[in-house]
């Protein structure tokens, strides 16, 4: 009883100080913070959804899509750190809750396609997260998803600041180094997940646009000088999407992004994302269609 009282007191204190982190549904603060954002800012009937892993969350300025296409209500529904199978799971969860979605933009890089085998598809419990997003009291979830270390470190750590569209800007001038090592081959599990995802959206009458993320030129020089990995990824994605109505844009091979725009091999600094998003939209027509 003493312990429970102290813990509740800690939560109340953190809440009072504005430091209370979200419950550890996934225990990945970036994902849990996004869920908290969606709880606090319920989306207003979005029609267009940007999905994927951190590259979709960080590199897309969703406001730019909406600015160029006033008829579009766009939402960034990406979560960081997800493999392809997990992105499909999270996207289906959002689409089930947001019945007005007509278009989905999926941004992929080779790293998203190489870890499905070891990544549990159900990245969170849909019933718990669904109730949480619907505004259920959150105290129970701090007990059910108890993790004191992550609670304290997330309370003391940097706060995630989302844009009103759900983007998570990397608002920095720093360059962190490449961080990402050599490309790993796509796993069949990821390609199967992508295929099933595309067919699922097709059945639901939702248009899917898949885009490969251009990687920093320094990374390509180091790990993919002959563009073998880039070509392989495009071919594998095309093969996985064959027979579906999804559209694939291999912008990794066709879009040149200045090295200065990157904070590491795959993530863009926020100041560059508006320009990058407009070029993507212009190339793919995402958001221009009704």
């Amino acid at each position, binding site marked *: *009883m*003493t*312990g*429970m009282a*102290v*813990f509740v007191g800690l939560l109340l204190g953190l809440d009072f100080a504005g430091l209370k982190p979200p419950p*550890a*549904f*996934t*225990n*990945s*603060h*970036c*994902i849990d913070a996004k869920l908290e954002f969606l709880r606090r800012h319920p989306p207003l009937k979005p029609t267009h959804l940007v999905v994927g892993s*951190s590259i979709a969350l*960080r590199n897309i300025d969703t406001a730019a899509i909406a600015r160029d296409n006033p008829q579009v209500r766009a939402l960034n529904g990406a979560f*960081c*750190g997800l493999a392809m199978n997990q992105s499909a799971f999270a996207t289906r969860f959002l689409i089930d809750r947001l019945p007005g979605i007509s278009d989905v933009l999926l941004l992929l890089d080779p790293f998203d396609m190489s870890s499905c085998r*070891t990544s*549990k598809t159900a990245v969170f*419990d849909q019933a*718990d997260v669904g109730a949480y997003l619907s505004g259920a009291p959150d105290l129970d979830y701090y*007990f*059910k*998803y*108890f*993790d*004191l*270390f*992550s609670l304290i*470190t997330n309370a003391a750590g940097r706060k995630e600041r989302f844009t009103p569209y759900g983007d998570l800007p*990397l608002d920095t001038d720093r360059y*962190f*180094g490449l*961080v*990402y*090592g*050599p490309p*790993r081959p796509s796993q069949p599990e990821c390609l199967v997940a992508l295929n099933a995802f595309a067919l699922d959206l097709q059945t639901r009458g939702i248009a899917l646009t898949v885009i490969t993320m251009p990687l920093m030129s320094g990374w390509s020089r180091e790990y993919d000088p002959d563009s073998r990995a880039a070509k392989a990824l495009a071919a594998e994605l095309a093969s996985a999407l064959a027979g579906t109505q999804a559209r694939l844009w291999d912008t990794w091979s066709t879009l040149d992004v200045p090295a200065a725009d990157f904070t*590491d091999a795959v*993530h863009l600094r926020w100041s560059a994302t508006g320009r990058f998003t407009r070029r993507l939209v212009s190339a793919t027509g995402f958001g221009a269609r009704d």
Partner: protein
Amino acid sequence: MLFNSGIFIFGFLPAALLVFYGLGLLGQRRWAIVWLTVASLAFYAWWDISNVPLLLASIVANFALQRLLMRRRSRAVLVAGIALNLAALVYYKYAGFLAQTINAAADAGLPVPYIVLPLAISFFTFQQIAYLCDTYDGLVDDSSFVNYMAFITFFPHLIAGPITHHKEIIPQLADPGLARPDARMIAAGATMFLVGLFKKVMIADPIAAYANPVFAAAAAGEPLTLFEAWGGGLAYTLQIYFDFSGYSDMAVGLGLMFGVRLPFNFDSPLKAASIIDYWARWHMTLTRFVTAYIYSPVTLRLTRRRMAAGKPLPRRGRMNLETFLSLVALPTFFAFLVIGIWHGAGWQFALFGALHGIYLTVNHGWRLLRKRWQLDWNDRSLLFVVPSVLLTLACVVVGLVLFRAPDVGTALHMLDAMFGGASLSLHSSQLLSHRQVQLTLVLLAIVWLLPNTQEWLRGTPTGLGEVRPPGWFERWITGHSLGWRPAPAVAVIVGLLGFLAIAKAISAAPPEFIYFNF
């Protein structure tokens, strides 16, 4: 079921305790022991009920052999008993590995059997071999089948030790005071259980999130920097220490809650200033078993053989190189090879044992040289202790890389990175973060400075075994009334620890995902 599962903490344990002490208070001590055995078998069956017949058959067969040995001291019966136990162990644990090895070496095309390893077979096999050997040597008092069965199946030690000895458990089961509740013993047992649970779920499991990605990257053949490899190895060392010693604390605590004192299994091994000292503190009951039933008999036999051949023997701890190799190096290496292979079927485990055999041999050799050269250093000075502890820790980390790696190739890849075959880069990395470094330093401070569980409960009978004299930090804690005793302040501390540990144990939160800054 696991000790850290909700079903165990809120279901099995309270029910087992209530019925056990209920029967004891009704004067049904014998039925209380039978209940303990039934509960232990249920605990074992929870994992996989199909393993229960093997456990029962092993117990019945060994008890029958023991009866035979009690009646007639027959070497043939002893050898047959040991062979039977080892045959079961080899079949279930090593048959697949042996077939693979023979196929690889001789292209024999043997079918590789897929055999599910029965839980705890390594533990109950060793215990029963010891029972047979001691019966043959006339060291076993008569015991009932009920007590023998309770000794082998007693659930606190059944799954992962400590490897108990019949001489320390069966007399306690035969004690007329068993199953009479002793509040202080139950409180001390609950404290040890909760401290062990805290170590397991609040420390070991979170630190695993730093070790696993490094070993996964090594298994995938990805390049590692020197600091990533050492960071991963050190994280795993801390993980397995807190995990296994936490489990052992839970086992000793659970034993106490049922009025049975189990032997200590850990004694702050990462404080060890030599590898010899380390093995006197790490998985102590395994070291004890191997020393008593493998190392000592082998050494004795070799000594007799040398005597018969007229070869020189050690005199006052001094010996020539040839004597050292045959009477120290050979049995040490052999004993540790057995320890390595006992841990698992794979060459990496054999290499782990062989490496520690070499460590021990070098350590023994160095001790002899110090004696011969009369290097009388002050072993307790910080100038000696600090480098010794750090060197021992480094050796342990290297050994545990072999232990943790899924195969020899992965281990060699890690070791290559640890010993200069890799970049010295300190660049941003997904495999080594500032937070990991900070956490590692905090955990090392805990390991090196704080008293261990049995030291904290000094003054109250807990496990079996010596408790070292208090260090300066423990004396400081005791001086500030923070030592364990049945008092309100301590109850609050234990209550807090217990809440954190149980809440984490039953939490649905997955292991924290360390996602760097992205």
